[in-house]
């Protein structure tokens, strides 16, 4: 593996731009694929980026270093500068480029038409193009499992969802968490807060303190690190959950379980299809059933009946008997989002403005 940061990518990009483009014609088998991964943070965040980097390592193991070579660009901000990073990676002759954050999409879609032979893969994306695929995982299915635990274990009946930004993957996760908690505790309240960052440990920690001081005793976070979980440990509340990876090392008592992202099989499949010359633009959105989303080990302090209930939800989602957004669902404004016996389709969240189910405080 070669590890780049943005600055070296800039330098190398300048040199590589002078080289002829090495893009292979479509539907031709390749001897070796060059794959690039653009991360919003660093793999050592123990969360989101860690998960993607593990996926990359798994893919390397599966396909072999003689078949694929990877470049990782870390710390790329979700903004106009990322466009330059994607362009440079394409100019350097990478065959497939994974942009692993929602905010990269605008820029990938702008660069992609300039490099028709380069494959772009937008994680948690919402729009495809002839050479842009989107891939995502149904984290909200995992959120339904942890919501069940939160609803049963909370003593105050108030949980919190510390989100980054009000984007579809975040507010649908919050809804899944809350709806599952309400199924086991009809009066459960979920406070949803946004910290306006994927990674700002001091602010995430202070946000957790503020929530705990206002009655929250179960916290789940949708940011990239374990800062909030550590505050849960320090304050001795019921607990919290790992996001993206197992975070129990940070909070042995407070860490109830975790939602683990498994990107490896998808990365293997995507890169292999480039190797075989049969990559096509598509949309992948798998969850608990196919193993893209796993629930980590349960903390031994969780009572057996709670584990059983959580497992029932997990298995129910896998066999299709339980849907995280099964009706009746009424939102905070009183609109019926799904009637009894109906469901809110997962894709609905991507097509509409953010809404929150009854009992959520935003």
């Amino acid at each position, binding site marked *: 593996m070669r590890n780049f940061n943005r600055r070296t990518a800039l330098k190398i990009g300048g040199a590589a731009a002078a080289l002829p483009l090495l893009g292979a014609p479509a539907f031709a088998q390749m001897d070796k694929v060059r794959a690039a991964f653009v991360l919003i943070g660093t793999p050592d965040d123990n969360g989101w980026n860690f998960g993607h980097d593990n996926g990359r390592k798994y893919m390397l193991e599966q396909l072999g270093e003689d078949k694929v070579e990877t470049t990782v660009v870390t710390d790329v901000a979700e903004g106009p500068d990322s466009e330059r990073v994607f362009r440079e990676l394409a100019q350097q002759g990478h065959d497939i480029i994974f942009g692993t954050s929602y905010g990269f999409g605008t820029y990938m879609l702008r660069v992609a038409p300039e490099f028709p032979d380069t494959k772009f893969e937008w994680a948690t994306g919402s729009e495809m193009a002839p050479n842009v695929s989107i891939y995502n995982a149904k984290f909200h299915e995992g959120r339904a499992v942890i919501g069940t635990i939160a609803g049963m274990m909370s003593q105050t009946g108030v949980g919190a969802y510390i989100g980054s930004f009000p984007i579809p993957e975040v507010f649908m996760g919050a809804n899944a968490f809350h709806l599952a908690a309400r199924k086991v505790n009809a009066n459960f309240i979920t406070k949803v807060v*946004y910290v306006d960052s994927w990674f700002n440990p001091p602010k995430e920690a202070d946000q957790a303190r503020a929530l705990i*001081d206002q009655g929250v005793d179960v916290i789940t976070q949708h940011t990239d690190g374990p800062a909030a979980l550590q505050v849960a440990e320090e304050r001795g509340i019921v607990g919290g959950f790992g996001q993206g990876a197992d975070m129990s090392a*940070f909070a042995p008592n407070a860490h109830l379980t975790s939602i683990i992202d498994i990107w490896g099989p998808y990365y293997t499949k995507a890169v292999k299809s480039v190797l075989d010359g049969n990559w096509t633009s598509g949309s992948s959105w798998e969850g608990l059933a196919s193993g893209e989303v796993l629930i980590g080990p349960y903390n031994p302090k969780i009572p057996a009946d709670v584990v059983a209930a959580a497992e029932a939800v997990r298995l129910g989602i896998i066999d299709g008997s339980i849907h995280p957004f099964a009706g009746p669902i009424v939102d905070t404004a009183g609109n019926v989002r799904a009637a009894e016996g109906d469901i809110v389709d997962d894709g609905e969240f991507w097509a509409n403005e953010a809404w929150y189910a009854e009992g959520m405080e935003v």
Partner: protein
Amino acid sequence: MSVDLIIPIIMTLIPAATPILLAAQGELVAEKSGVLNLGIEGMMLTGAVITAAVMLITGNVWLAILCAALAASTAALIFGFLTLSLSANQVATGLALTILGTGFSALFGQPFTGKAVPLFKSPFPAELAADPFWRLFFGYSPLVYFSLAMVVLIWWFLQRTRPGLILRAVGESDISAHSIGYSVIGVRYLAVAFGGAMAGIAGACYPLMLTPQWVERLTSGRGWIALALVVFAAWRPFRLLAGAYFFGLVMTLEVYAKASGGGFRILPSEAWAALPYLATILVLVLISMRRSGSTSAPACLGKPFIPAT
């Protein structure tokens, strides 16, 4: 917002403000001697990573803080060598120090990620430190009390001691201080080293008190607030304390307002996030409106001193 939230808000704002206060105190002394060091963020990150490393290896918190102060001080002395001995541009060199500190901490910190660092908790007995009311005075990490003691100490040093007078003289008129026999460069080296040590201790607050772990860019840009704070406080130690707690209050009110779900959510979340910056602009405008001799910057701030032999 209910009254019973006042104590929790203060309990959150004071630790949040402490690293900013510590770093700003160091910067204040350096700037009083005429040196503008923009490398606070880099030095804080250096202090933070060294603290986490020493804590995880030895578990000795005092050794960790000492090493953090020494490491950040060493980084500051590199800056000092370039700007004082070689008369390099202070702004550019300071920015380079931030980049160096960010990169060094990321590289050095790699083996220490993914582990929880033990907290440096209140030294007082639990009856006081955990009491719903008395924790307001006794519930903080020793780093908080240290930062408060330093407010008085720095004020006393600058205003009441002879070395403090010399330091201010060097910052106000380097040529005069030089001509009556004081070592301008020597004094500035000491001030820069002190500034580094304080930034290192400020960095130590993150793994020991606020976010007990090491991860890249742990301080999340708060060193820059410390830099602004020195100007905000018009180079006065007690105003620095007030300014740091004011910033802490604004940052803390944001998270409490968001968590309240109603009540004092009078502003949208983005407006809360912008509030510290709006407050900074407002205060800077107020300061510049009532300009008197004592509120302005040290006269030699940022200027290299090249003694005429």
